[in-house]
C-alpha cells in the first residue's frame, strides 16, 4: 500500500521548462508546490568541466535511462513495434531541469497560421486542399492571445535575437541583441539574400551579454564553448530552468523538488484528480502525494502514458477515429526533418567550426507555415532552412564526400581535410497529423515497474514527404549559391518510412488542445476537459507540428496555464474556458 503524504496546493510531474515555469509562477503567489522528478538532482556544479563528447554526445549521459523506461515504435499499424533500445534513437530528458537543460536554445514563436490552421486553410484554399487522412484542427486560441506569454518566456529565458523580417508581429523586441556572428553564418546569409530570401539570426537562449531576467535571475554571457547541445552549461550562460524558474521557485521557500521519484499514476475519483502516485527509485517505497491541482509536465510520452494508465479521457482509436488520448502524435522525425538538407565541401575555405553555441546560426523562413501560397504546392504548411554554427565536435563529425571509401588512407585523409571545410544546411519541416499516427500502450514491452511502454505508430503521408523534398531542394539551391565545390544531399526518398528515431526530442500531441471536448483533451489553459483540477502541459497539447522548434511555445503555454491555475485556486474552480461543440455529432 502506498503511503499517503500531506496534501499540498500543487503537485507537478517533471522539472523542465513546463514544470519549472508552473513552479515559479505558483510559488511566487504563495502556493506550496512539490515537483516529482524521476532523475537525479543536478546543478551548475555538475556541468563544470563537462566538455566530454564521448560521455554526453555519444553515450548520452544526460538522457533518459532507457534501461528503466522507453517507448516502442513502428511505421504502420500492421507492424509489430520494437522498443527504442539505445539513446542514439531517443534523446529524452531525465534529471532536474529535464531536456530543457541540454537543449540548444533555439527559441521560436509559432505562426498565426499554426493556431488557426484548419480554418485558415479552408478559408484560403477550400476544404478540398486538406488531404483525406490529415487531421489538422484549430487550437482554440489565436497568436494574438498567446503573444504576451511568448514575450514573457523570451524575457525569462533571456533570448538573444533580431526581428524576423517575415515573422509574426511582436509587442516588444528580444531582451538581448543577437549573438556574435561568424564568416560562415555571413556566407549563408549572403547567399540566401542573393536568392531573394530573408535570412535572420537564430533567436537563442544563449546570452549575447550578461542579463538579469524579470524574476531577478542573472544569466551570464555565453563563451561560445561549443559543448552546448546535449550539455548543461558550464557558465550559467544558457537560459534553462536551473538558472531561471527553478531557482526563482526555490527562493520563495514554497517549493520542493523530490528527485529520484518516478510517477506511475494519477490518483483520481473520476471527476477530480486526487494526487500522484510515485515510487522512490532508491528505496522502492510507493507514495501518494495529494494536491488541489495536479500538473503533468513529464514530456509527451510520460504525459500520455499516465493518462492512459490512469484511465483519464477516452483513448484514441485510429479505426473509428473516436476518442482523444494519443491522437495527433507528431514531431520532427529526423529522416524527413531537421537532419535533411545539403552538405557542401569547400576545397579553398576553412572555418573555425569547432567553436560555437547551441543556437548560433541563421535561418530563412520564406517557406515557413503558409508564408508562400500553397495553391500549386502538393503539401500544406512548410519548412525553414537553417545554418548552425554550434561547434563541430570530432567524434560526431566525420564527413567525407560521397564516393570516398568507407575506411583506409583516403578516408582518413578526406575526413581530416574536410573537418573544418564542410557546412550543412538543413531543412526543418512541419509534420501534419494524420489518423494513423498516434500513441497508445504497447501490448508486449514493459517498463521497470511492469507497466506497458508507450507505443508510437508513425505513418508518413505523401504531403510530409513532398514538403521535405521541397526543403532539400531549397537547401541545395542555397548551398550552390554559397559556392561549395562538392554538394551531397541528405535526401528524402519517395518511399521513406519512419525509422523509429526520436532524435530531435520535438515530439508532440496525444493530449491535444482545442475548444471542443469531443476532439481535444485540454482547453487553451492546458486544463483537462474531463477533470478540471488536472493540467497537462508541454508539447503533448500541440495538435500538430510546425516547422519551428517547440520549446518557446511550450513555455508560453505554461505561463498561460499557470495563470489559469492561479485563477482556479483563488476562485471557485471549474473549467476556465467554456466548451464548444464544433464537431459533427
Amino acid at each position, binding site marked *: 500500500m502506498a503511503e499517503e503524504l500531506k496534501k499540498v496546493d500543487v503537485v507537478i510531474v517533471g522539472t523542465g521548462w513546463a514544470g519549472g515555469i508552473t513552479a515559479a509562477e505558483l510559488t511566487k503567489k504563495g502556493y506550496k508546490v512539490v515537483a516529482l522528478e524521476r532523475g537525479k538532482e543536478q546543478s551548475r556544479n555538475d556541468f563544470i568541466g563537462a566538455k566530454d563528447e564521448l560521455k554526453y554526445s555519444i553515450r*548520452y549521459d544526460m538522457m533518459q535511462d532507457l534501461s528503466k523506461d522507453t517507448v516502442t515504435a513502428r511505421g504502420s499499424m500492421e507492424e509489430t513495434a520494437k522498443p527504442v*533500445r539505445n539513446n542514439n534513437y531517443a534523446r529524452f530528458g531525465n534529471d532536474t531541469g529535464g531536456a530543457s537543460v541540454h537543449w540548444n536554445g533555439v527559441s521560436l514563436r509559432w505562426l498565426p497560421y499554426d493556431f488557426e490552421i484548419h480554418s485558415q486553410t479552408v478559408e484560403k484554399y477550400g476544404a478540398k486542399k486538406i488531404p483525406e487522412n490529415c487531421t489538422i484542427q484549430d487550437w482554440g486560441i489565436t497568436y494574438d492571445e498567446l503573444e504576451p506569454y511568448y514575450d514573457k518566456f523570451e524575457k525569462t529565458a533571456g533570448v538573444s535575437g533580431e526581428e524576423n523580417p517575415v515573422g509574426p508581429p511582436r509587442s516588444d523586441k528580444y531582451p538581448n541583441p543577437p549573438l556574435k556572428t*561568424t*564568416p560562415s553564418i555571413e556566407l549563408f546569409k549572403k547567399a540566401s539574400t542573393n536568392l531573394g530570401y530573408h535570412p535572420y539570426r537564430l533567436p537563442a537562449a544563449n546570452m549575447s551579454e550578461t542579463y538579469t531576467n524579470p524574476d531577478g535571475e542573472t544569466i551570464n554571457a555565453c563563451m561560445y564553448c561549443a559543448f552546448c547541445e546535449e550539455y548543461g552549461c558550464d557558465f550559467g550562460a544558457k537560459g534553462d530552468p536551473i538558472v531561471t524558474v527553478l531557482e526563482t521557485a526555490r527562493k520563495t521557500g514554497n517549493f520542493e523538488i523530490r528527485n529520484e521519484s518516478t510517477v506511475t499514476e494519477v490518483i483520481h475519483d473520476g471527476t477530480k484528480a486526487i494526487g500522484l502516485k510515485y515510487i522512490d527509485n532508491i528505496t522502492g517505497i510507493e507514495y501518494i502525494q495529494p494536491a488541489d491541482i495536479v500538473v503533468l509536465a513529464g514530456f509527451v510520452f510520460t504525459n500520455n502514458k499516465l493518462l492512459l494508465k490512469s484511465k483519464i479521457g477516452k483513448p484514441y482509436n485510429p479505426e473509428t477515429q473516436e476518442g482523444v488520448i494519443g491522437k495527433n502524435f507528431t514531431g520532427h522525425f529526423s529522416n524527413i526533418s531537421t537532419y535533411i538538407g545539403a552538405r557542401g565541401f569547400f576545397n579553398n575555405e576553412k572555418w573555425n567550426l569547432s*567553436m560555437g553555441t547551441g543556437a548560433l546560426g541563421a535561418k530563412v523562413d520564406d517557406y515557413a507555415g503558409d508564408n508562400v501560397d500553397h495553391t500549386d504546392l502538393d503539401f500544406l504548411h512548410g519548412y525553414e532552412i537553417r545554418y548552425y554554427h554550434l561547434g563541430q565536435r*570530432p*567524434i560526431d563529425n566525420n564527413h567525407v564526400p560521397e564516393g570516398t571509401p*568507407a575506411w583506409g588512407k583516403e578516408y582518413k585523409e578526406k575526413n581530416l581535410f574536410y573537418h*573544418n571545410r564542410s557546412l550543412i544546411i538543413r531543412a526543418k519541416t512541419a509534420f501534419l497529423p494524420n489518423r494513423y499516427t498516434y500513441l497508445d500502450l504497447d501490448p508486449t514491452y514493459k517498463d521497470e515497474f511492469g507497466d506497458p511502454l508507450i507505443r508510437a505508430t508513425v505513418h508518413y503521408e505523401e504531403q510530409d514527404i513532398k514538403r521535405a523534398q521541397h526543403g532539400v531542394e531549397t537547401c541545395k539551391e542555397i548551398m550552390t549559391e554559397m559556392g561549395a565545390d562538392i554538394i551531397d544531399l541528405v535526401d528524402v526518398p519517395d518511399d521513406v518510412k519512419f525509422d523509429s528515431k526520436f532524435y530531435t526530442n520535438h515530439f508532440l500531441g496525444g493530449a491535444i488542445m482545442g475548444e471542443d471536448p469531443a476532439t481535444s483533451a485540454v482547453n487553451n489553459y492546458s486544463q483537462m476537459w474531463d477533470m478540471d483540477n488536472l493540467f497537462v502541459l508541454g508539447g503533448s497539447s500541440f495538435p500538430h507540428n510546425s516547422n519551428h522548434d517547440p520549446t518557446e511555445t511550450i513555455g508560453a503555454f505554461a505561463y498561460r496555464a499557470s495563470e489559469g491555475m492561479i485563477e482556479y485556486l483563488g476562485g471557485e474552480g471549474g473549467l476556465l474556458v467554456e466548451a464548444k461543440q464544433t464537431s459533427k455529432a
Partner: protein
Amino acid sequence: MADNNNPKTESHDPGRRNFLKNTGLVVGGVAGGSLLGGLFTNQMKSDDGKKGKNEETAKVDPSHARVFFGRFEDFIVLATATELIFPEDDNGPGAIGLDVPYFIDKQLAGTWGINGDDYRQAPFTNLEGLKKIEKADEKVNHSRANRGKIFLEGLRLMNAESMKRFDASFDQATEEQQHEIMGDLAAGKLDMKSIPSDAFFALLKQATLEGAFSDPLYGGNKNMDGWRMKEFAGARPSYADVIESEEFVKLDPISLTDYQRKK
C-alpha cells in the same frame, strides 16, 4: 581562465612531429599487415623490458593492459582492423598510435560492452529481422547479443576467414588481403550469428573513431593527436574572443585533465 580567453597568443605547434619522434610504438610509413603484428609483439617485449639498454624504448604505459580481451589473438585482430580503418599517414598516427585498441578494450569492459544503459527486455529481433533494419547502429541495438559478444564474434570471424582464404591469421595477412576481408565485412557478406556483418563493420568503425577523437581520459586519442590532426582544440572554456575571426585560428588542444585542474 583569463589566459584561455585569449587563445590567439598560444603556441601553434601541433607537436605532431615531436610526437612521432618521441613515441617508440609507431614508426614511419603505413604499417603493413605483418608489420603490425610485429609492432604489437615488440611493444609487448619492450614492456617486458627485454630491449637493450641503449635502445630508445618507450616508457611503459600502465594502462596498456587488456581488460576485456582475454586472448591476445583477438586483440591483435582488433588492432589490425582499427589501423586498417584509420591508418598512420603523413597527417599523423593511426589507430594503433592513438591507442585506439586499448580504448576499445576498456569500453567493452564497461557499461557500453554489456549495453548497460540500453533497454534490454526480450523479445529481441532475430537475424532475419535485423537484416530488414536499414540503419547499421539499429541492427546492433536490436540484437540479443551485447556489444562485447558481437565484437568477439566479429573479430574471430575475420581471423577465421583470413586463415581459410590465405592460410594466415588476419594480422599476418597482406594489407591487400586484409582489405579484401574488410570489404566483405562492410558489404555484409560474412555470416555472423549476432548481427549482419555490415553492422559489425559500422560498430567497429564507430568505436575506432571514438577512440581516435574522445578525450584522452578514456585511454585513446593519445597525446591528443587525434584532435591535432583535426585541428580540434578540445575542452576549451571559451572561444568568445576568437569566434568572429575571418581567419582560421589554430589552437593547441586542451584535455579535460588540464581543464578540470583549472577549477
